[in-house]
C-alpha cells in the first residue's frame, strides 16, 4: 500500500510532529517503501495462530502496594524547560 502525502500529514498530526511540504513528500516515499516491505507478511496465513502476548514464561511478580518514595518534586521539576516553584509551565490552555 502506498502512503500518500495526505496520510503522512494525518499521522504526523496524530503523532504531534509538525512537517513542511518538502518533508511530507520525502516521508511519503520513505514510508511507502517501509510499508511495502512490511506487507511481505500478507503472504503468510496466520488465521489459526494466537498472537504472542509475552516472551518470557515466568509469571509477573506482584508486590505490596506501598509508598516507598515521594517528596521529590524538586527532582521531578529539575529538568523542565519552563517551571515555577511548584509546577511545569505550559502555554495557556483555557481562554
Amino acid at each position, binding site marked *: 500500500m502506498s*502512503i500518500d502525502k495526505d*496520510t*503522512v500529514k494525518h*499521522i*504526523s498530526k*496524530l*503523532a*504531534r*510532529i*509538525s*512537517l513542511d511540504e518538502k518533508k511530507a513528500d520525502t*516521508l511519503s516515499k*520513505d*514510508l511507502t*517503501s*517501509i*510499508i511495502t*516491505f*512490511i*506487507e*511481505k*507478511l500478507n503472504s*503468510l496465513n*496466520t488465521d489459526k*495462530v*494466537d*498472537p*504472542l*502476548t509475552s*516472551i*518470557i*514464561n*515466568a509469571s*509477573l*511478580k506482584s*508486590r505490596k502496594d506501598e509508598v516507598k518514595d515521594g517528596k*521529590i518534586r524538586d*527532582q*521531578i521539576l*529539575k*529538568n*523542565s*524547560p*519552563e517551571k515555577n516553584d511548584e509546577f*511545569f509551565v*505550559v*502555554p*495557556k*490552555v483555557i481562554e
Partner: protein
Amino acid sequence: MSNISELSLTKIINGIKKKEFTSEEVTKSFIDQSKKSKKLNTYITECFEEAIKSAKNFDKNKNYKGLLSGVPIAVKDLFCTKNVRTTAGSKILHNFIPTYESTVTNNLWSQGAFLLGKLNCDEFAMGSSNETSFFGNVINPYGEKLVPGGSSGGSASALAAGLTPATIGTDTGGSIRQPASFTGTVGLKPTYGRCSRWGIVAFASSLDQAGPMTRNVEDCALLFQAMSGYDSKDSTSVDTKVDNYSSKLTDKVKGLKIGIPKEYKVDGMPKEIDDLWKKGIEYLKDAGAIVKNISLPHTMYALPAYYIVAPAEASSNLARYDGVKYGHRAKGKNLIEMYENTRSEGFGDEVKRRILIGTYVLSSGYYDAYYLKAQKVRQLIKNDFDKAFHDVDAILTPSTPSSAFKIGDKTNDPVSMYLNDIFTVPVNLSGLPAISVPAGYDKNNLPLGLQLIGKAFDEQTILNLSLAIEKRADFNKNFKVWWI
C-alpha cells in the same frame, strides 16, 4: 604505561589486585587514549575528572571485593546516570541530567567500577550505523570511512580502539551484536528479563535488553555476571539466580549439539560470509560438538514483523517527549503547536520515520492488519526456535550479512539499512540470548563475527561455545592506529 589500555578487562582487574599498577594509572591510560582519539567521535560526554577522583579514592581505600574493582568503564549514552547528562543521541534530550541511576550501571558501580564517560549511539538506539546520532557519526577504527555499526556504535568503536576496557550497550534488534561484529569485539544480548531495563531510555520495551561488549569472551562472562540480576523496578525482570558465568566458563563443549539453520543462507549472501560460517562449523566440530542441520521456517518474516512491533512500541514510548517535563522545547502559539514544533525540531529523520510508521500501524482500522498480524508472526518465529531447541543446545549463524560498510552508503534507503539486522532480529523477537564473537576477516581485512543463539537463560552454553571458537579462530586485532 601506554599499553595498559590494550589489556583485557580481566588482566586489568588482576593487575590492580596484584598491585602491578594502580587504578589511577589505569584510568589515566584510558583517558589519555580517549583524548588522542577524538577523531573517532565516540564520546558524547566525558567524565574524566570525576573518574580520576574515583580512581584515587579507590587506590586510597583499596577494596577488592567487587568483580570490577578499580576499573573505569564508559557506557552507551542510553543508560541514565545520576547527575551526568544522558542524551540517547538525541537533540530532544541534549540537556537532560537524570536525578537517578539506571539499575544496570548501578550494578557495575556496586562491583567497584566507575564511570569514564557516555558513548555515542544512534538516536534513541534507532539505526545500524551510528549515523542517526544528533552528535555526529562515529568512525570505525578499522577504517576512516567506515561505520562502526549501530546502534551501540560509540561503544563498539571505543572498545576496539582501546578507549575503555569494556562497555555496555543495548540490543533491540542487533544493536550490540552487529557493531561487535563490525569492530572485531564480543557482544552479548542476554535473555529478555536477565538485565533490568529500569533507567534505560526506552525504545521498544518488549525487545530492549542491555548487555556487555568486551575484547574477549572471558571478559564478556565477567561483565555479564556483574550487570545481571533481578530488579523489582522492572516488572519484566526475571527472578532467577545469576550464575557464576566466569568461573563456569570452559571451552570443553564436547557432545553439545549445534543447529545450522538453512534459512539463514540468504540470497545474495557474500561468499566470504558463507565461508566464515563453514569455518565456524569446523571449529566447533574440532571442539567435539555435534553439528545438525535444522530449519527455522519463518525466518524470512522476522524483519517485516520487527518493523511493525518496534516502531509501534517506539511511537508509544516516545510520546513522553513533549517539551514539558525535560529536554528540548520549541516555541508555539498554543500547547499543541508547542508539542508539534518541539518534536519536529527535537527528533531526527529516522526517529520521525519510526514514530510515524508506529502511529500508522496502530491507528484506527489498521491495528489488526499490522500489529496483531505481527504478534502472530512473532509467535510462529518463537515456536520455530522452541521446536529447534528440542534437538539442539545452540544455533550457529553469521552475525551480519556483510562487514562494516562505508559512511553514507545506506542512508538514502531505510529498507537497505534495515536488512543489516536480518540475522539478529529473530532473536529479539523471541527473547533469546545470543552472542557475536569475532571469527575472521573478509577480503578487505575487515572483521566478521559469528552468532551463537542459546536457549532462554542459558547464556553459559553460548559463552562456552564462543570461547571454543575464539581459541580456534585466526583473529587478532590488526588495524593500524591511523587516527592518532
